């Protein structure tokens, strides 16, 4: 166990299970939220070492969630990875402008997801 916790925010239940499988196998504790609103609630509830956020979500999309996290002094220093199916530069730029630390294009390989999580949480690689 790395003792690090990660909040996964994605509206796809299968995707969430996939992230959970991968990240738990890598020793992380994983929490889930199904949209931006839930994600923000969860983030306020617990202290997370990393957030992995889908861009396209109902209620509050990923960009908006990132923006709101960055606007909250208690949350703003949590690194955030945004994940999207859009591979266009402008989408990446949007995420970086919102304050995401990394923009990743789906689908994500399990090993690289785990490696990214380890790097960004400071967990042992």
């Amino acid at each position, binding site marked *: 166990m790395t003792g690090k916790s990660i909040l996964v925010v994605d509206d796809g*239940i299968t995707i969430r299970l996939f992230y*959970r*499988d991968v990240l738990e196998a890598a020793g992380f504790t994983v929490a889930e939220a199904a949209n931006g609103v839930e994600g923000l609630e*969860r983030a306020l509830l617990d202290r997370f070492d990393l957030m992995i956020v889908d861009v396209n979500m109902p209620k509050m999309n990923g960009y908006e969630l990132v923006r709101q996290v960055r606007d909250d002094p208690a949350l703003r220093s949590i690194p955030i990875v945004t994940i999207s199916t859009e591979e266009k530069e402008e989408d990446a730029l949007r995420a970086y402008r919102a304050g995401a630390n990394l923009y990743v294009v789906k689908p994500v390989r399990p090993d690289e997801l785990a490696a990214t999580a380890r*790097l960004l949480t400071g967990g042992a*690689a």
Partner: protein
Amino acid sequence: MSNALLARFIPEARDLLQSSASGLLRLEKSPADATAINEVFRAVHTLKGSSGLFDAVALTRLVHAAEDLLGEVRSAQRELDSDLVDMLLDSLDQVSAWIDHLERHERLPDDADRVCKAAVGRLRDRLAPAEAPASSDPPAEEKPAAEIGWIADMAEADRLALFSDAARGHPVLAVHYVPAETCFYNGEDPFGLVLQVPGLGALDVVTREPWPPLEELDPYRCNLAFRLLASGARVEVEHLFRYVSDEVRIDQVAPDALIRLAGAPAPGPLPVVEDFAEEARACLERRDWAALRTATAALLALTNPELSTASALRWLDAVSAAPFPNAAHAAALIEAVATGEPPRLGSADVEPPRPVLATLRPRPGTVPADARDAASGDVEALARRIVAAQRCVLAEAQALDRVRAHVGAVATVLARLLPGRADDGLCARIAAAARVAETDGDAGPLLDLLGTLDDATDGGTAAATTVAPGTASVVPAPGADASAGEAARDERGAARMLKVDQAKVDLLMNLIGELVVSKNSLPFLARRAEHIHGSREMAREIKDQYAVIDRLAQEMQGAIMQVRMLPVSEVFDRFPRLVRDLARKLEKRIDLVVEGEDTAADKTIIEALGDPLLHVVRNAIDHGIEPPAERRAAGKPEQATIVLKASQEADHVAIEVRDDGRGIDPAKVRAAAVAKGVVDAGAAEALSDQEAIRLIFRPGFSTAAKVSDLSGRGVGLDVVLTTVEKLGGRVAVTSRSGEGTTVRIAMPLSMAVTRVMVVEVGGEPYGIPMDIIAETVRVPRERIKTIKQAPAFVLRDTVVPLLRLARTLGCGTAAADVAAEAVLVCRIGGAPIGLVVDNFREGMDVILKPFDGVLAGMRGFSGTALLGDGHVLLVLDLKELL
């Protein structure tokens, strides 16, 4: 394949398909419905994302094509017409069929690739022509492969088109394919293969060695090689070449590698070029791309198209037309125009930090099978990419004046990444600069420090990759233990909705059923305690406990019923599509109005409702609704209306199918029934109009002159009646000629508990379902008359024929000499009938279990129920029996 993941995916996919389909239908009705288009788009988008986790490339591709089309509809580039809806619905149907197949076989059917190709082709044909086959794949490397010499040999027009695609995010692939000399013997068709490359943009066929003299030429030896550029998705290209992966090299090409000037240099200084260069530099300074394009077009019109100057102008136009024009490229091209020299591209250092696409994609050939090794091999490259991304985040934050909000997370990331990767002094200075940025809101010093870091560490990781077959799709987590995942699920972030396997609920239901029945034995126990053991005290205590258990059991039963309740929308949801399709087929115009879809009933009932409703609705569309011309002639609106309405009434749910069609003509029904031998002429005349209309539910009846392919199919409405009645429901039909027909189906809310009346016949108890019993009466012997050679009695002016249940069941009767007969008046199919039994006993709720095993074929019984004292009660199915 992880079964847990797949098991989670399948229901999700079905939900998403259902909501996309219903959203599409809403959209077709009201194309401006922004909520609907967003909903459909999101559902399809999520489905695409989830499906990408599985080795179901065909499915993902098809969904992706549908998403692209929907994307155009959403951004209002495209009208959503009925044909498009049809096409999209067909695609969703195909996906749905594949989901079924995935569920059973954990893979797609063998023909999936072929089917996908055809379906995707149809969808792509509808995409805007400017859209090259959109790629589902990001570039495999953010740094494209090194210069590939032959790219410059490709026609400029082709390169320009590819450049424009690349600028819109479709990566350009350079494919070099050298087929084996013996390939023809393997039945390969290299040229055919090449022509299938998705998004093929430019092709050059070359010889590997000079052609030998004709007499030495071996025509069976392949001497060709292919060079091509494509804007297709990498995985698709890799998939295409999967059988010859060692003969092909696929590189991603940077857009600027396409910029190579064609044509001869200008013989002398061209007029107005100096003016142009000046103006163009000014436009570039202002980043006024539109003005730059205008100036470019003006000069291009004056320039000989054969000259390299014209080529440079054409490239300048292409660069400025990109969504994210590259200023360095534009500057280099302007200078090329001015000087007549080839442009000096690729000076990346003059550029501000660009967004970094950390594309975590499989890199076949570079990724060993073991994920841990792979991760450690790539980790340093990944770390560099992340650091580069932080530069981008900071630069953007600086521009947006959001440094204070964003720098904290950047600092966190750097503090986690850098130690061990950069020297300690630099780490400390970076940390200090981050603190400054946080307090002052100025990220300048931090950006400078990161710049030095970047130069020191970023050697670039450009690597050409070869295709490795079978590695294109993402495999689920290595060693991920599904059960461990499940167990940890509730630790944090408990799910609010639970998706439970139907079988588990059924099991719980059965167990509660058993509990209800076992608790019924307590009153018997109390009675025994009192009468046999003489302990009143004990009997009372048992009864008290019984009351408690009884209440709990009932509450449990109520709770589990609630779990099993489904809204009728489960059934109703398929009708908008059905009505639409049938109406189009029959060229009728029909508006379907659905009401009360939130009404809930037990799952079994809801599921059983589908078929009967389908029949009724089909019948309404086929026979009830008139063609538009006929409706117009009758003074009705051309658009017919069918109302599908559910409501809860006391203990049953009522479903109404109401149409405003031509109605049912009782005279025609009578005639048809007589002609078909359903009833004889006399009987038909004796029927009231409403009774005559009910004849349509008789087996063998169909008023349609010819069997249509919709509601015909050899089965009539009689099937509706039998299905509904088997479930304890009723069907009523009312119709006014010329005004329409209403079919009303009433179903019990739940079938889990059946209320029966226990009667005694020949000394044995039998259960009779309460819902068909109208009343119980004791008829004095003298009131029983023989009418038409059969016993009957008159109950409030109605003649009720009598039937001895003992005789029907073939057992003796215990009470032959009573003064009054116990008669159960039942209603079966409308007409009352009196059943003579030996005695009435109590009514009770029982859990009805159908016969199984050798008894399954028994007719006349709907099943058995266990009584509290352990006896088995046979429950009669009077409809069968009589």
